[in-house]
């Protein structure tokens, strides 16, 4: 009597099982456990009490003014970072997609910011913006564009944009590379046909390049959004959420709630809210930019 599963299926199951077990331990369990934690009022400095509060942590955070501020800051930061990164990446990809002398060297140089560790990137830009001996002040003053040194990161109207600039510098190269790969796959015939039809450079870009870039653009938008919305390291190094609450983003709020206030329950709830927001945005991008079949 033949078994329900074939020999191949059983072998495959046995071979996959160790990986599955590891995934369950290192991925599934923490995810489920953190959700369980988010349903409790856990404050590490009060170890004797950890009552089950259901969804109260979620309600409390949603009503917290700090959460509203953090959502606003995160949205602004994400919109600026993702849009500027994408536009710059398209420009760089268009440039590097052309054949010219030094193209390979530029391609290699492009990788430098991306290869720089985030901590180093944050420290580098913090020094560039420094109010006393920063490069930005020195350059602007010497060019006569600024009268005296400014505290760039101390200006709450500029802080988020300046952090965003540091993020764009690091993230744009990878986005450009992803788009270059997509551009290389566009058939040359399409451009020739467009030229025959009398399309100029701009028209060829709008009607040939952009539609063909859709898969690459979707990848860039989803990836950059997921990275930006959860960005933490630059905020830790450059401003610590300040000045005041000028760079108080969701990831910073999670850090403060979890590791400074040691409120693991609300910290976990916030993490879930951030995860849900990330999934929602990613789904929207895939839904509207994904390849349409049929």
């Amino acid at each position: 009597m033949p078994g329900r599963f074939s020999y191949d299926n059983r072998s495959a199951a046995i071979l996959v099982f160790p990986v599955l077990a590891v995934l369950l331990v290192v991925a599934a369990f923490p995810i489920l456990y953190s959700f369980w934690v988010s349903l409790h009022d856990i404050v590490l400095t009060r170890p004797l009490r950890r009552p089950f509060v259901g969804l109260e942590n979620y309600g409390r955070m949603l009503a917290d003014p700090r959460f509203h501020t953090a959502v606003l800051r995160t949205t602004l930061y994400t919109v600026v970072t993702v849009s500027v990164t994408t536009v710059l990446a398209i420009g760089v990809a268009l440039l590097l997609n052309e054949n010219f002398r030094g193209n390979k060297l530029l391609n290699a140089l492009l990788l430098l910011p991306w290869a720089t560790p985030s901590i180093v990137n944050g420290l580098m830009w913090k020094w560039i913006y420094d109010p006393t001996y920063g490069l930005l002040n020195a350059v602007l003053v010497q060019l006569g564009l600024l009268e005296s040194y400014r505290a760039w990161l101390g200006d709450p109207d500029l802080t988020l944009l300046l952090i965003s600039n540091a993020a764009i510098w690091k993230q744009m190269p990878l986005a450009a590379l992803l788009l270059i790969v997509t551009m290389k796959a566009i058939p040359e015939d399409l451009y020739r046909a467009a030229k025959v039809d009398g399309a100029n450079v701009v028209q060829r870009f709008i009607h040939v390049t952009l539609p063909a870039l859709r898969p690459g653009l979707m990848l860039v938008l989803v990836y950059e959004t997921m990275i930006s919305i959860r960005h933490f390291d630059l905020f830790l190094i450059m401003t610590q959420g300040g000045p005041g609450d000028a760079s108080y983003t969701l990831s910073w709020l999670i850090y403060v709630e979890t590791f400074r206030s040691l409120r693991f329950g609300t910290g976990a709830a916030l993490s879930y809210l951030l995860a849900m927001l990330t999934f929602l945005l990613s789904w929207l991008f895939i839904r509207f930019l994904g390849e349409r079949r049929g």
Partner: protein
Amino acid sequence: MKSELTRRGILQGLAAAGMVAPGMAAAQAAGSLNFIGWSAAVDQVKAHISAFERDTGVRVNYENFPWAQFRTALVTRLVGNAPIDVSWVSDAWLPEFAEAGWLADIEDMPGLKRYNAEAASYCTQSMVYKGKQYGLAYYGDHMSFMYNTDVLQKAGIAAPPTTWDEVVEQCLKIKRAGLMEFPLLLSLGADTWLIEFASALAFSFGGSFVDDKGDSVMGAPGGGVVAAARFLHDCIHKHKILSPGAVETVELNGLRAFGSGAHAFTIEPTYRIRSLNDPAQATAHGKIRPAMMPKGGANGTHDTCGWIRFYAMTPAAKADRARRERAVKFIEYFGGRDTRGKYSLQEMLLLDVGLPSCALPLTEDQEVKTFWERWAGGGDIIARQSMSARKKDVISPWFGEWVETSNQAWQSVCLGRATPEAAMAALGNKWNELKRAFR
């Protein structure tokens, strides 16, 4: 034969692993102690640990973490029941740690409590929570007002200011002389020092954050805290003697900036005066001197904010007789006198890194007097200022949560985003909310 050898090999391996692995339990049985601290004065601490091990035969397992991460690292270890015997603790954490049951009191340890007779009273008070004392001091310090003698001389100023109004006047004079744009330097970046700076300023304006019952008075209109906040706002936006960049200047960067000679006045922890006058560390070396904290407004005082860090024992160590004996020996050797009857670590910490001690007998020590003479032009001002140092009145079980809001409130005032009255009233409301929530 082969299988027997293999089994023996395994057993030998296990035995060896048991001997060399950092198994705390085994090590404790052999007379060891686990001590955790932050990464400060590491060389001095290690040297003293060697001396302690030599004198007592107790082996010390010493772990240290950066200060910025230390509280979280310590809490996670305490929650996880890590076998810690003695830890450095900040006075700011005492109430929440004591409430959590992570620290053992030393009320029944007369051998340790006898050192209170030789300690500055604010130091001892900083280790007391709900009438019980929780350790012996590692060091005690206070915020000092410091000035650059060179700048004052160039501006034709004969004596350092004694009130904050005089600070403003002298700063404006220095500015008018074209010596510098921002004569006053205050590190108001959102790091762990901000509350000490804010407290020192508030105390000098005759203010208190809370009353005797622990209820918030920080938002009281006309109170010292609001006046201090108003002063900061005016220094930045009205007098323009303090850089708007102060909100992104953390204490360490402030120290470097003041050491460069680019400012005339600052507030710094007293222990920094050594590095500020050290030719290897500061351009303005030899020119930095302490003065009494200026008085602010009509109700002003020369009071400043004092703090201590101390050695505390865990309840697990106290509960075990052998561990308790070792911990008591360690705390006495490090926080009191060593086996030769000397405050040797306290003296070494002062002479090597400038950390002031809580031990009063050391003030009469000739080497200590020479130290203050060399690095601060004498120890009189520092001694007088330490007598008017006040413990932070906001230390409470909810301090860790409240201080985040506090940092934001002070920065909002400096940025001109909130009036001092509104910011401090909101801060007071947060205090009351956390106090109510603490059950």
